[in-house]
């Protein structure tokens, strides 16, 4: 279990993470959402031991996490798929997997079995020997994910794993993440795409300016922070939008005044929650 216990981290005057607390359970996809500069990457870096918290404790598997990144022991249990494609492009996909597998202590048949399994997981079996520079963006993304799980870790951290890929590859990545959950892994998933979080994440933490704004399941978040839905009504050539928590009642009221030709109800979603919690001002 990954535990953030009142963790804070500053860079000079900037408080990147401020008193952040959460726990990630086994078999759960945990979404970490926030606007640019919210502190997501800092939190991920602390989770993998690249950064040391100024205050609080990051723990893994109920033991104090050794914050020194040179201390190898705790890192055997976690895998990271960075936001950028972190692969050696001059060598083949299988060789990338083999290299990182060796770094995690895999040898011989164990290593080869994992390489085969991960190529299959990423749907790259047929192109395993091909150099990565020849891969498409989607193939590289899938390999980036496969490398993170070559050593079969308990905790997998995926930092915006679908950036820059086409819908087919994105859907393939969703399926792989669901497979990881089904296999009992803890998955921490950061993204800017609300529909991804809504589809994949069992629970979502929304952070802004380093602070935890809300943490719950997606339906609970919508219930608590989504606000009213929108009833869109068309009458003749005019169209109007009405905020409402009772769409049928509102529709009846409108029908009583004037005949409604067409209507559509837009319920609140995770994006509404996100904007309600973090505001609509641009973040740089």
């Amino acid at each position: 279990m990954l535990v953030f216990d009142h963790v804070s981290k500053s860079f000079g005057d900037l408080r990147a993470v401020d008193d952040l607390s959460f726990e990630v359970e086994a078999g759960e996809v945990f979404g970490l959402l926030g606007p640019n500069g919210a502190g997501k990457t800092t939190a991920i870096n602390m989770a993998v031991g690249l950064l040391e918290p100024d205050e609080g404790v990051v723990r893994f598997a109920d033991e104090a996490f050794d914050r020194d990144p040179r201390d190898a022991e705790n890192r055997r249990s976690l895998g990271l798929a960075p936001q950028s494609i972190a692969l050696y492009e001059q060598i083949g996909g299988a060789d990338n997997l083999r290299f990182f597998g060796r770094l995690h202590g895999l040898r011989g048949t164990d290593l080869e079995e994992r390489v085969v399994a991960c190529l299959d997981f990423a749907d790259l079996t047929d192109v395993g020997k091909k150099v990565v520079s020849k891969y498409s963006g989607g193939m590289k993304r899938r390999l980036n994910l496969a490398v993170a799980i070559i050593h079969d870790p308990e905790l997998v951290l995926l930092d915006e794993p679908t950036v820059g890929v086409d819908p087919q590859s994105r859907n393939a990545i969703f399926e792989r993440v669901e497979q990881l959950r089904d296999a009992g892994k803890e998955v921490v998933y950061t993204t800017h795409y609300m529909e991804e979080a809504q589809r994949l994440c069992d629970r979502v933490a929304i952070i802004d300016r380093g602070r935890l704004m809300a943490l719950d399941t997606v339906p609970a978040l919508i219930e608590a922070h989504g606000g009213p839905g929108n009833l869109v009504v068309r009458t003749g050539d005019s169209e109007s939008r009405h905020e409402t928590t009772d769409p049928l009642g509102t529709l009846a009221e409108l029908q009583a005044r004037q005949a409604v030709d067409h209507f559509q109800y837009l319920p609140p979603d995770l994006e509404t929650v996100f904007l309600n919690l973090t505001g609509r001002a641009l973040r740089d």
Partner: protein
Amino acid sequence: MNKIVAMAAKDIHILFRDKLGFFFTVFFPLMMAIFFGAMFAGLSRGPANIPIALVDQDRTSASERFIERLGQASGLAVEQIPREEALEQVRRGRTAVMVTLTPGFGAALDNPFVTTPEVEMTVDPTQFAVAGMVRGVLLEAAGAELQDLMSDPARLGAANSQNSLFFESLPPSDARDQMLTFLDLSPRVSSLIDEMGLGAATGGNQGFGPPLEIEQTEVQAERPGPTNSYATSFAQAMLWTLIGGSVSFSMSIAIERSRGTLMRLLVAPITARHLLAAKGLACLGATLFTSTALITLGITVFDVRPTSYPLLALALLCGSICFCGIMMALSVIGGTEQAAAGIGWGLSLPLSMLGGGMVPLFLMPEWMQTLGNISPMKWTLMAYEGAIWRGFTLNEMLLPCAVLVAIGVLAFTLGARNLRWDTG
């Protein structure tokens, strides 16, 4: 037009905001100008900075006079030392030329009409251009000696008296009589020329052959050494292999950082020490392999014959250790791959110049030669050449090898301690 000016101004602005671009646009050319200016300033004062080892086996007043004249000549720094020591200096590359005044040199100098004075010149085969300059200064000094003799009736008369006795001992003939008449007249040649009002229009030594015979040998004539010029060119090539390898590997850490693989490595269950060791080992292995491959090619195809294979192996290892350390130091200085490459080459080129990798050390001013001791390239070349053709002994090889290892360890330690492990 305004648009063009605006775009040009933008590009110039960006250039000067880019520290690396600024370095190569302004600072590096300035550095080159200062380097070559300082070097050729030394040359413009004459080759006084060319050291020659002089061995006086004649030990006469005439040879001492000639040595004094050489010492005053612009172009040479004469050091009079015993023959064995002089030979060692040439062999070690500390001096380019050894000049030996053999017995009889002084007598011939005082009376060049019968025997032309001779000197032996032993040269470092890599320094033929310098040897040519020394040859010119020697001829100039001998010519000046001859001119002095011809314009000094007393010395000329003494020489002629000696020669007359010799010719008078020969059987009578017209040729002998004409020679005796010439010898009788020759002390008065200068005054007769003056009487005719020709003065300096004629040279005092006209009609004679060269004022000096120079017998040139290479230092290897007495000891085993290079078989051809490839022996020296391959040593240079091996040095450039090390430089190229160290710069390339210094970029690799920056590349790992920019492409995100450094983050993966740092998250893997390995320590920073593992990473450093791997980088060091890769650089050591690659430079060792390429330099070994080069010299193997030289040996098998170009007839390069190292004087000692064990010492060559030692030199190769020490050179690679040194540049492996330099690689780590360069990795620290250059945060990005462009910066690492730029700074790597920006430092390597002037250090190569200082170390004799481009211009022979003898052509540089003395202060610059001293400064060259800070250049690892100088010590690498010394070690390589010592094993390939200079015939170094183990004791002689210890100094350059120790310096190389010390530089390597120091640079690696400094680099490793200051290496940025952040991934951004």
